[in-house]
Protein backbone atom coordinates (compact mmCIF):
# COMPACT_ATOMS: atom_id res chain seq x y z
CA UNK A 1 0.00 0.00 0.00
CA UNK A 2 1.46 3.27 -1.08
CA UNK A 3 1.62 6.17 1.27
CA UNK A 4 -1.43 8.41 1.03
CA UNK A 5 -1.64 12.18 0.96
CA UNK A 6 -4.38 14.78 0.96
CA UNK A 7 -5.88 16.14 -2.24
CA UNK A 8 -8.32 19.01 -2.59
CA UNK A 9 -9.79 20.02 -5.91
CA UNK A 10 -11.64 23.30 -5.60
CA UNK A 11 -13.26 25.60 -8.13
CA UNK A 12 -14.57 29.08 -7.37
CA UNK A 13 -18.09 27.79 -6.94
CA UNK A 14 -17.54 24.58 -5.02
CA UNK A 15 -15.19 21.96 -3.67
CA UNK A 16 -15.15 19.43 -6.48
CA UNK A 17 -13.28 16.62 -4.78
CA UNK A 18 -11.50 16.20 -1.50
CA UNK A 19 -9.91 13.18 0.09
CA UNK A 20 -6.87 10.93 0.32
CA UNK A 21 -4.96 9.64 -2.65
CA UNK A 22 -1.83 7.69 -3.37
CA UNK A 23 -1.16 8.91 -6.90
CA UNK A 24 -2.18 11.97 -8.86
CA UNK A 25 -1.54 12.89 -12.49
CA UNK A 26 -2.22 16.43 -13.66
CA UNK A 27 -1.40 18.53 -16.69
CA UNK A 28 0.47 21.75 -16.10
CA UNK A 29 1.34 24.30 -18.74
CA UNK A 30 4.79 22.68 -18.91
CA UNK A 31 3.59 19.10 -19.26
CA UNK A 32 2.24 16.20 -17.29
CA UNK A 33 3.18 15.82 -13.66
CA UNK A 34 2.81 12.66 -11.63
CA UNK A 35 2.60 13.08 -7.89
CA UNK A 36 3.19 10.57 -5.15
CA UNK A 37 3.58 11.08 -1.44
CA UNK A 38 6.52 13.20 -0.21
CA UNK A 39 6.77 15.12 -3.46
CA UNK A 40 8.87 18.26 -3.35
CA UNK A 41 6.96 21.56 -3.02
CA UNK A 42 5.64 22.63 -6.40
CA UNK A 43 3.69 25.63 -7.60
CA UNK A 44 2.46 25.18 -11.13
CA UNK A 45 -0.09 26.59 -13.52
CA UNK A 46 -2.62 24.05 -14.73
CA UNK A 47 -3.52 23.52 -18.35
CA UNK A 48 -6.75 22.19 -19.81
CA UNK A 49 -6.95 18.46 -19.40
CA UNK A 50 -7.73 15.47 -17.27
CA UNK A 51 -6.60 15.03 -13.70
CA UNK A 52 -6.38 11.47 -12.46
CA UNK A 53 -6.57 10.77 -8.78
CA UNK A 54 -5.93 7.27 -7.53
CA UNK A 55 -6.30 5.90 -4.05
CA UNK A 56 -6.36 2.33 -2.78
CA UNK A 57 -10.10 2.17 -3.01
CA UNK A 58 -11.02 4.32 -5.98
CA UNK A 59 -9.95 6.07 -9.14
CA UNK A 60 -11.35 9.44 -10.06
CA UNK A 61 -10.86 11.52 -13.16
CA UNK A 62 -11.69 15.17 -13.26
CA UNK A 63 -11.88 17.49 -16.23
CA UNK A 64 -10.03 20.68 -15.39
CA UNK A 65 -9.59 23.99 -17.15
CA UNK A 66 -6.91 26.37 -15.92
CA UNK A 67 -5.86 27.21 -12.39
CA UNK A 68 -3.01 26.26 -10.10
CA UNK A 69 -1.45 23.26 -8.53
CA UNK A 70 0.25 23.48 -5.19
CA UNK A 71 2.11 20.68 -3.50
CA UNK A 72 3.25 21.34 0.03
CA UNK A 73 3.90 18.92 2.88
CA UNK A 74 1.88 16.11 1.37
CA UNK A 75 -1.03 18.40 0.73
CA UNK A 76 -1.97 18.75 -2.92
CA UNK A 77 -4.28 21.59 -3.79
CA UNK A 78 -5.73 22.14 -7.23
CA UNK A 79 -7.20 25.59 -7.53
CA UNK A 80 -9.06 25.26 -10.77
CA UNK A 81 -10.92 27.88 -12.75
CA UNK A 82 -13.41 25.24 -13.76
CA UNK A 83 -13.60 21.58 -12.91
CA UNK A 84 -16.09 18.81 -13.33
CA UNK A 85 -16.04 15.22 -12.13
CA UNK A 86 -15.98 12.68 -14.89
CA UNK A 87 -17.84 9.43 -14.70
CA UNK A 88 -15.80 7.76 -17.38
CA UNK A 89 -12.11 7.41 -18.09
CA UNK A 90 -9.41 9.94 -18.87
CA UNK A 91 -10.65 10.49 -22.42
CA UNK A 92 -14.05 11.41 -21.09
CA UNK A 93 -12.46 13.80 -18.60
CA UNK A 94 -10.44 15.37 -21.40
CA UNK A 95 -13.63 15.92 -23.33
CA UNK A 96 -15.17 17.57 -20.31
CA UNK A 97 -12.12 19.78 -19.96
CA UNK A 98 -12.33 20.79 -23.62
CA UNK A 99 -16.01 21.49 -23.10
CA UNK A 100 -15.14 23.70 -20.13
CA UNK A 101 -12.65 25.57 -22.22
CA UNK A 102 -15.18 26.18 -24.98
CA UNK A 103 -17.68 27.30 -22.38
CA UNK A 104 -15.17 29.80 -21.11
CA UNK A 105 -14.17 31.10 -24.51
CA UNK A 106 -17.80 31.39 -25.46
CA UNK A 107 -18.43 33.46 -22.35
CA UNK A 108 -15.81 36.04 -23.16
Amino acid at each position, binding site marked *: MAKAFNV*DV*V*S*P*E*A*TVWSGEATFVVAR*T*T*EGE*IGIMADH*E*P*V*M*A*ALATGAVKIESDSEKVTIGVHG*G*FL*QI*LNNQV*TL*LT*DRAELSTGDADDARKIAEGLRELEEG*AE
Partner: protein
Amino acid sequence: MKITRAMELIAASRIPKATARVSASKPYSAKLVEVIRNVSAASGGASHMLLERREVKNAGVLIVASDRGLAGAYASSIIREAERHIIAVEKSGTPARLFVVGKKAQSYFHYRKYHIERAFLGVTDTPGYGDARAIANILMDAYASNTVDSVDTFYTQYKSPMTQVPLQFQLLPIVAPEGAEGSEPLASVDYSYEPSPTAILDRLLPRYVESTVFSMLLEASASEHSARRRAMKAATENADELIRILTRIANRARQAEITTEISEIVGGAEALSQQT
Protein backbone atom coordinates in the same frame (compact mmCIF):
# COMPACT_ATOMS: atom_id res chain seq x y z
CA MET B 1 -51.14 41.06 0.95
CA LYS B 2 -51.04 37.86 -1.03
CA ILE B 3 -48.36 39.38 -3.22
CA THR B 4 -46.14 40.50 -0.36
CA ARG B 5 -46.63 37.12 1.29
CA ALA B 6 -45.61 35.36 -1.91
CA MET B 7 -42.56 37.59 -2.30
CA GLU B 8 -41.60 36.88 1.28
CA LEU B 9 -41.75 33.16 0.62
CA ILE B 10 -39.82 33.43 -2.63
CA ALA B 11 -37.09 35.48 -0.97
CA ALA B 12 -37.04 33.08 1.97
CA SER B 13 -36.58 30.12 -0.35
CA ARG B 14 -33.65 31.81 -2.03
CA ILE B 15 -31.76 32.61 1.15
CA PRO B 16 -30.51 29.07 1.84
CA LYS B 17 -29.40 28.72 -1.76
CA ALA B 18 -27.56 32.02 -1.65
CA THR B 19 -25.89 31.32 1.68
CA ALA B 20 -24.95 27.83 0.50
CA ARG B 21 -23.21 29.41 -2.47
CA VAL B 22 -21.41 31.82 -0.15
CA SER B 23 -20.04 28.94 1.88
CA ALA B 24 -19.30 26.83 -1.20
CA SER B 25 -17.05 29.59 -2.52
CA LYS B 26 -15.12 29.92 0.73
CA PRO B 27 -12.69 26.98 0.30
CA TYR B 28 -11.48 28.37 -3.01
CA SER B 29 -10.84 31.87 -1.77
CA ALA B 30 -9.21 30.58 1.42
CA LYS B 31 -6.89 28.32 -0.56
CA LEU B 32 -6.14 31.08 -3.01
CA VAL B 33 -5.13 33.44 -0.22
CA GLU B 34 -2.94 30.71 1.23
CA VAL B 35 -1.25 30.10 -2.11
CA ILE B 36 -0.68 33.80 -2.72
CA ARG B 37 0.89 34.21 0.69
CA ASN B 38 3.13 31.23 0.10
CA VAL B 39 4.22 32.46 -3.29
CA SER B 40 4.85 36.04 -2.24
CA ALA B 41 6.74 34.84 0.83
CA ALA B 42 8.81 32.49 -1.29
CA SER B 43 9.52 34.96 -4.05
CA GLY B 44 10.71 37.53 -1.51
CA GLY B 45 8.02 40.18 -1.89
CA ALA B 46 7.81 40.18 -5.64
CA SER B 47 6.22 43.31 -7.00
CA HIS B 48 3.33 43.32 -9.37
CA MET B 49 1.34 46.01 -11.06
CA LEU B 50 -1.79 45.08 -9.14
CA LEU B 51 0.06 45.30 -5.83
CA GLU B 52 1.74 48.63 -6.34
CA ARG B 53 0.34 51.65 -4.67
CA ARG B 54 0.44 54.80 -6.75
CA GLU B 55 -0.79 58.34 -6.52
CA VAL B 56 -4.55 58.38 -6.86
CA LYS B 57 -5.58 60.76 -9.64
CA ASN B 58 -8.82 58.98 -10.41
CA ALA B 59 -10.60 57.03 -7.75
CA GLY B 60 -12.62 54.04 -8.88
CA VAL B 61 -15.65 53.04 -6.89
CA LEU B 62 -17.55 49.81 -7.30
CA ILE B 63 -21.00 49.70 -5.76
CA VAL B 64 -22.91 46.47 -5.40
CA ALA B 65 -26.60 47.20 -4.93
CA SER B 66 -29.68 45.47 -6.29
CA ASP B 67 -31.67 45.36 -9.51
CA ARG B 68 -35.05 45.29 -7.86
CA GLY B 69 -36.57 47.25 -5.04
CA LEU B 70 -38.94 46.01 -2.37
CA ALA B 71 -36.08 45.04 -0.12
CA GLY B 72 -36.44 47.67 2.54
CA ALA B 73 -33.41 49.86 3.03
CA TYR B 74 -31.05 47.33 1.44
CA ALA B 75 -30.12 49.30 -1.68
CA SER B 76 -30.38 52.75 -0.17
CA SER B 77 -28.11 52.04 2.79
CA ILE B 78 -25.26 50.77 0.63
CA ILE B 79 -25.79 53.63 -1.83
CA ARG B 80 -25.74 56.16 1.00
CA GLU B 81 -22.50 54.67 2.29
CA ALA B 82 -20.94 54.84 -1.17
CA GLU B 83 -22.14 58.36 -1.88
CA ARG B 84 -20.60 59.62 1.34
CA HIS B 85 -17.29 58.17 0.19
CA ILE B 86 -17.64 59.63 -3.29
CA ILE B 87 -18.39 63.09 -1.92
CA ALA B 88 -15.37 62.87 0.38
CA VAL B 89 -13.15 61.77 -2.49
CA GLU B 90 -14.35 64.49 -4.83
CA LYS B 91 -13.93 67.14 -2.16
CA SER B 92 -10.24 66.30 -2.03
CA GLY B 93 -10.07 67.09 -5.75
CA THR B 94 -9.96 63.55 -7.10
CA PRO B 95 -12.61 62.69 -9.65
CA ALA B 96 -14.47 59.52 -8.82
CA ARG B 97 -15.29 56.99 -11.48
CA LEU B 98 -18.25 54.82 -10.76
CA PHE B 99 -18.82 51.18 -11.55
CA VAL B 100 -22.21 50.07 -10.40
CA VAL B 101 -23.86 46.71 -10.06
CA GLY B 102 -27.64 46.76 -10.04
CA LYS B 103 -30.31 48.95 -11.53
CA LYS B 104 -31.04 50.68 -8.23
CA ALA B 105 -27.54 52.07 -7.93
CA GLN B 106 -27.43 52.94 -11.62
CA SER B 107 -30.63 54.99 -11.57
CA TYR B 108 -29.71 56.67 -8.28
CA PHE B 109 -26.32 57.88 -9.44
CA HIS B 110 -27.50 58.60 -12.94
CA TYR B 111 -30.29 60.80 -11.59
CA ARG B 112 -27.78 62.72 -9.50
CA LYS B 113 -25.61 63.31 -12.56
CA TYR B 114 -22.67 61.25 -11.42
CA HIS B 115 -20.53 59.91 -14.19
CA ILE B 116 -21.04 56.17 -14.40
CA GLU B 117 -18.19 54.39 -16.10
CA ARG B 118 -19.90 51.02 -16.35
CA ALA B 119 -23.09 49.51 -15.08
CA PHE B 120 -23.66 45.81 -14.65
CA LEU B 121 -27.28 44.76 -14.58
CA GLY B 122 -29.03 41.49 -13.96
CA VAL B 123 -26.32 39.83 -11.92
CA THR B 124 -27.36 40.38 -8.32
CA ASP B 125 -30.06 37.72 -8.12
CA THR B 126 -27.86 34.70 -8.70
CA PRO B 127 -24.35 35.88 -9.52
CA GLY B 128 -22.16 33.42 -11.41
CA TYR B 129 -18.41 33.30 -11.49
CA GLY B 130 -18.52 34.51 -15.08
CA ASP B 131 -20.22 37.72 -13.94
CA ALA B 132 -17.54 38.26 -11.31
CA ARG B 133 -14.84 37.63 -13.88
CA ALA B 134 -16.34 40.13 -16.31
CA ILE B 135 -16.55 42.81 -13.63
CA ALA B 136 -13.07 42.05 -12.31
CA ASN B 137 -11.58 42.18 -15.80
CA ILE B 138 -13.11 45.55 -16.54
CA LEU B 139 -11.82 46.91 -13.24
CA MET B 140 -8.35 45.52 -13.81
CA ASP B 141 -8.27 46.88 -17.37
CA ALA B 142 -9.25 50.29 -16.07
CA TYR B 143 -6.52 49.99 -13.47
CA ALA B 144 -3.92 48.86 -15.99
CA SER B 145 -4.77 51.66 -18.42
CA ASN B 146 -4.57 54.30 -15.66
CA THR B 147 -8.24 55.14 -16.00
CA VAL B 148 -8.43 54.60 -12.27
CA ASP B 149 -5.63 54.44 -9.73
CA SER B 150 -7.53 52.65 -7.02
CA VAL B 151 -10.77 50.79 -6.63
CA ASP B 152 -12.87 50.86 -3.51
CA THR B 153 -15.85 48.61 -3.33
CA PHE B 154 -19.07 48.89 -1.41
CA TYR B 155 -21.12 45.81 -0.76
CA THR B 156 -23.31 44.34 1.92
CA GLN B 157 -21.82 41.62 4.01
CA TYR B 158 -24.11 38.82 5.07
CA LYS B 159 -23.60 38.19 8.76
CA SER B 160 -26.79 36.39 9.71
CA PRO B 161 -30.41 36.34 8.54
CA MET B 162 -31.06 39.40 10.67
CA THR B 163 -27.87 41.39 10.22
CA GLN B 164 -26.26 42.55 7.03
CA VAL B 165 -23.60 45.19 7.19
CA PRO B 166 -22.66 47.67 4.46
CA LEU B 167 -18.91 47.43 4.02
CA GLN B 168 -16.14 49.29 2.28
CA PHE B 169 -13.25 47.29 0.90
CA GLN B 170 -10.20 48.30 -1.07
CA LEU B 171 -9.96 46.03 -4.07
CA LEU B 172 -7.12 47.64 -6.01
CA PRO B 173 -4.25 47.96 -5.44
CA ILE B 174 -4.42 44.60 -3.71
CA VAL B 175 -3.78 44.78 -0.02
CA ALA B 176 -1.67 41.77 0.87
CA PRO B 177 -4.29 39.32 2.05
CA GLU B 178 -3.99 38.28 5.64
CA GLY B 179 -4.07 34.67 6.62
CA ALA B 180 -6.77 33.15 8.71
CA GLU B 181 -6.39 33.97 12.35
CA GLY B 182 -4.09 31.71 14.26
CA SER B 183 -2.14 30.59 11.23
CA GLU B 184 1.53 30.93 11.96
CA PRO B 185 3.69 33.06 9.71
CA LEU B 186 4.93 30.88 6.93
CA ALA B 187 8.50 29.92 6.56
CA SER B 188 9.40 30.60 2.98
CA VAL B 189 8.93 27.47 0.96
CA ASP B 190 11.29 26.43 -1.76
CA TYR B 191 8.83 25.67 -4.47
CA SER B 192 9.87 24.42 -7.80
CA TYR B 193 7.88 26.65 -10.11
CA GLU B 194 6.33 25.74 -13.39
CA PRO B 195 6.72 28.08 -15.21
CA SER B 196 8.33 30.96 -13.23
CA PRO B 197 7.31 32.66 -9.96
CA THR B 198 6.42 35.88 -11.75
CA ALA B 199 4.34 34.02 -14.31
CA ILE B 200 2.50 32.28 -11.49
CA LEU B 201 1.94 35.55 -9.66
CA ASP B 202 0.73 37.10 -12.91
CA ARG B 203 -1.97 34.50 -13.05
CA LEU B 204 -2.69 34.33 -9.34
CA LEU B 205 -3.44 37.96 -8.64
CA PRO B 206 -6.16 38.40 -11.27
CA ARG B 207 -7.75 35.22 -9.92
CA TYR B 208 -7.64 36.76 -6.48
CA VAL B 209 -9.43 39.90 -7.68
CA GLU B 210 -12.00 37.76 -9.45
CA SER B 211 -12.68 35.58 -6.49
CA THR B 212 -12.92 38.61 -4.20
CA VAL B 213 -15.48 40.20 -6.50
CA PHE B 214 -17.29 36.88 -6.70
CA SER B 215 -17.56 36.49 -2.95
CA MET B 216 -18.75 40.09 -2.70
CA LEU B 217 -21.49 39.43 -5.23
CA LEU B 218 -22.53 36.30 -3.39
CA GLU B 219 -22.60 38.02 -0.02
CA ALA B 220 -24.55 40.89 -1.49
CA SER B 221 -27.01 38.52 -3.10
CA ALA B 222 -27.59 36.63 0.15
CA SER B 223 -28.04 39.97 1.91
CA GLU B 224 -30.47 41.19 -0.70
CA HIS B 225 -32.66 38.13 -0.42
CA SER B 226 -32.82 38.25 3.34
CA ALA B 227 -33.44 42.00 3.31
CA ARG B 228 -36.28 41.42 0.88
CA ARG B 229 -37.70 38.64 3.00
CA ARG B 230 -37.68 40.88 6.04
CA ALA B 231 -39.21 43.81 4.16
CA MET B 232 -41.93 41.61 2.72
CA LYS B 233 -42.63 40.02 6.08
CA ALA B 234 -43.07 43.48 7.57
CA ALA B 235 -45.28 44.46 4.64
CA THR B 236 -47.42 41.37 5.10
CA GLU B 237 -47.78 42.06 8.80
CA ASN B 238 -48.69 45.68 8.13
CA ALA B 239 -51.24 44.58 5.57
CA ASP B 240 -52.72 42.10 8.06
CA GLU B 241 -52.98 44.83 10.65
CA LEU B 242 -54.53 47.21 8.15
CA ILE B 243 -57.04 44.60 7.07
CA ARG B 244 -58.01 43.98 10.70
CA ILE B 245 -58.57 47.67 11.36
CA LEU B 246 -60.46 48.22 8.12
CA THR B 247 -62.65 45.17 8.69
CA ARG B 248 -63.53 46.53 12.12
CA ILE B 249 -64.42 49.95 10.70
CA ALA B 250 -66.46 48.35 7.95
CA ASN B 251 -68.31 46.19 10.45
CA ARG B 252 -69.05 49.17 12.64
CA ALA B 253 -70.33 51.17 9.67
CA ARG B 254 -72.55 48.32 8.60
CA GLN B 255 -73.86 47.89 12.14
CA ALA B 256 -74.62 51.59 12.38
CA GLU B 257 -76.49 51.42 9.09
CA ILE B 258 -78.55 48.44 10.24
CA THR B 259 -79.35 50.14 13.53
CA THR B 260 -80.55 53.26 11.74
CA GLU B 261 -82.63 51.18 9.40
CA ILE B 262 -84.24 49.25 12.25
CA SER B 263 -85.06 52.38 14.17
CA GLU B 264 -86.54 53.89 11.01
CA ILE B 265 -88.72 50.84 10.47
CA VAL B 266 -89.76 50.78 14.10
CA GLY B 267 -90.47 54.51 14.00
CA GLY B 268 -92.45 54.11 10.77
CA ALA B 269 -94.48 51.21 12.16
CA GLU B 270 -95.24 53.17 15.28
CA ALA B 271 -96.40 56.17 13.26
CA LEU B 272 -98.68 53.93 11.19
CA SER B 273 -100.22 52.27 14.24
CA GLN B 274 -100.98 55.66 15.80
CA GLN B 275 -102.86 56.74 12.68
CA THR B 276 -105.35 53.88 12.80
